[in-house]
């Protein structure tokens, strides 16, 4: 929040923040360009506070998965999530829990990750052209309905890839997005995708990730350098398959070291390939930070990144194209495939992900913010199905 004020000053940050709440939010809506970096940072802070508040209200402790959810929310608040479009989804998921007589806290992770469907709310409220008196209530109702159907679908999708896609709600939201985008399309509404991509420079956006990553590393050392190193090394041997809470399975110090190092590595990689530190790129890096506590480690990421790189080279793509930059950052959802089945499977997963992800965004018209999670889910399902078929059918 301090960075938001330092970046552009209090008044532009607040007015820009308000402007973002009433803007379209489908992929790719770079909030650092649509308003200003300060407004985007303020939105990130507010969405992060919302996530923490939801956890607090549900009496859920901060751990690998809950922090992954909050960092993912914050990351996507750079390019799609707003306070306004997150709330109906969270309410809907809580209602879903009550319908089956569970406590809302049992679905709290689905609620937080499920805010990837926030653009449905913004789309109905601000893109369809309805009068505000109709658009706002209607967008809230549709957002709540989307939230209600999320848990049953999220659990069903989990069984498809068996925990080998870290962004399970991405696959789920993509599935819902197919229907959500088809309905207005059938009614003759133009729902073509668009991309805003900030190529400008801002010192605070440039420094945000190194500051957070170094803080994570410092905290890790403060928890005991030797112990943290031992835990960090043990994390590198883990597959990362859902649900791998590194803070519990190894220890907090090792998990923080893993988060700090992996995020810094990707930050340097972005620097080397000349990617701008804009909203979507920072969103990707914050998501890596969160999931480095919950499934991603350095070793299970390498084959995925190499697979994507191989596909980029083979098909002669430009490495700094927005959707390829995002594929490098978010394709890491497939890291458990490499962690469990080895280097070759990871390489294949990364390759297939790049081939597929270019197309999937158009299928749901950018309504699902976790487009890479959708693609990764399809890739993981394909690979897991073949491996399972082979392992369960081969004659001993």
């Amino acid at each position, binding site marked *: 929040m301090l960075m938001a004020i330092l970046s552009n000053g209090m008044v532009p940050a607040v007015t820009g923040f308000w402007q973002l709440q009433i803007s379209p939010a489908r992929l790719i809506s770079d909030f650092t360009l649509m308003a200003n970096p300060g407004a985007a940072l303020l939105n990130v802070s507010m969405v992060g506070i919302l996530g923490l508040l939801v956890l607090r209200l*549900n009496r*859920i402790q901060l*751990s690998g*998965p*809950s922090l992954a959810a909050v960092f993912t929310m914050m990351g996507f608040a750079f390019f799609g999530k707003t306070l306004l479009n997150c709330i109906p989804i969270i309410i809907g998921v809580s209602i879903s*829990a009550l319908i089956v007589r*569970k*406590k809302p*806290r*049992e*679905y*709290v*992770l*689905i609620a937080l990750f499920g805010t990837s469907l926030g653009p449905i709310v913004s789309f109905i409220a601000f893109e369809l052209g309805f009068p505000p008196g109709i658009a706002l209530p209607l967008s809230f109702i549709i957002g709540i309905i989307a939230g209600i159907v999320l*848990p049953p679908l*999220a*659990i069903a999708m*989990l*069984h498809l890839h*068996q*925990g080998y896609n870290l962004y399970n709600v991405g696959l789920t939201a993509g599935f819902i997005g197919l229907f959500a985008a088809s309905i207005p399309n059938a009614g003759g509404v133009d729902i073509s995708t668009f991309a805003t991509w900030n190529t400008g420079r801002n010192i605070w956006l440039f420094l945000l990730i190194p500051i957070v990553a170094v803080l994570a590393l410092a905290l890790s050392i403060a928890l005991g350098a030797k112990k943290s190193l031992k835990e960090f090394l043990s994390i590198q041997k883990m*597959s990362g*398959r*859902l*649900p791998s*809470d590194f803070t*519990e399975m190894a220890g907090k110090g090792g998990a923080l070291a893993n988060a700090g190092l992996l995020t810094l590595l990707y930050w340097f990689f972005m620097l080397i390939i000349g990617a701008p530190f804009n909203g979507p790129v920072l969103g990707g890096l914050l998501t890596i930070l969160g999931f480095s506590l919950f499934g991603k480690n350095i070793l299970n990421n390498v084959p995925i990144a190499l697979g994507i790189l191989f596909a980029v080279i083979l098909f002669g793509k430009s490495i700094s194209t927005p959707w390829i930059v995002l594929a490098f950052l978010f394709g890491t959802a497939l890291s458990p495939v490499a962690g*469990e089945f080895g280097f070759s499977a990871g390489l294949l997963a990364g390759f297939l992900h790049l081939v597929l992800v270019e197309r999937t965004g158009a299928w749901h018209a950018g309504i699902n913010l976790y487009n890479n999670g959708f693609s990764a889910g399809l890739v993981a399902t394909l690979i*897991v199905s073949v*491996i*399972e078929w082979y*392992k369960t059918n081969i004659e001993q």
Partner: protein
Amino acid sequence: MKRREFLVHLISEVSSFLLQGNPRKMVVSLHQEADGIHLAVLDDRPRSDAEIAEIEHSLNTARRPELAGYYGQMAGQDLLGSARLNLVGWQIKHADVLKTPEGGVMLNLWIGGEGFEFDKFNLSKGTQE
């Protein structure tokens, strides 16, 4: 989740874990009472004290409702890859792991509601003696 389906998934995950060790023998025993359930699964594969401590730790992790309600649904269903006892641990009241006279282990799982006290369960005393 209905009790029958819930039990099938737990038995499946725990059985999958023990079968990973390729035992010669495995026995599943279930005892149901009105307010709680005792599930015992035993095999004949020898395990070190460290392995037993690890199993006990996985089964007695702190209750994690946010994980049990979502990822816990994978227990006993998604069996490709290593079995994961923590998926079971989030959903049960208590577990202990004992060495059997045949050299294997016996996993005792107690399942019940908030008011269920596993140590008052009549079968538990008989089992541990």
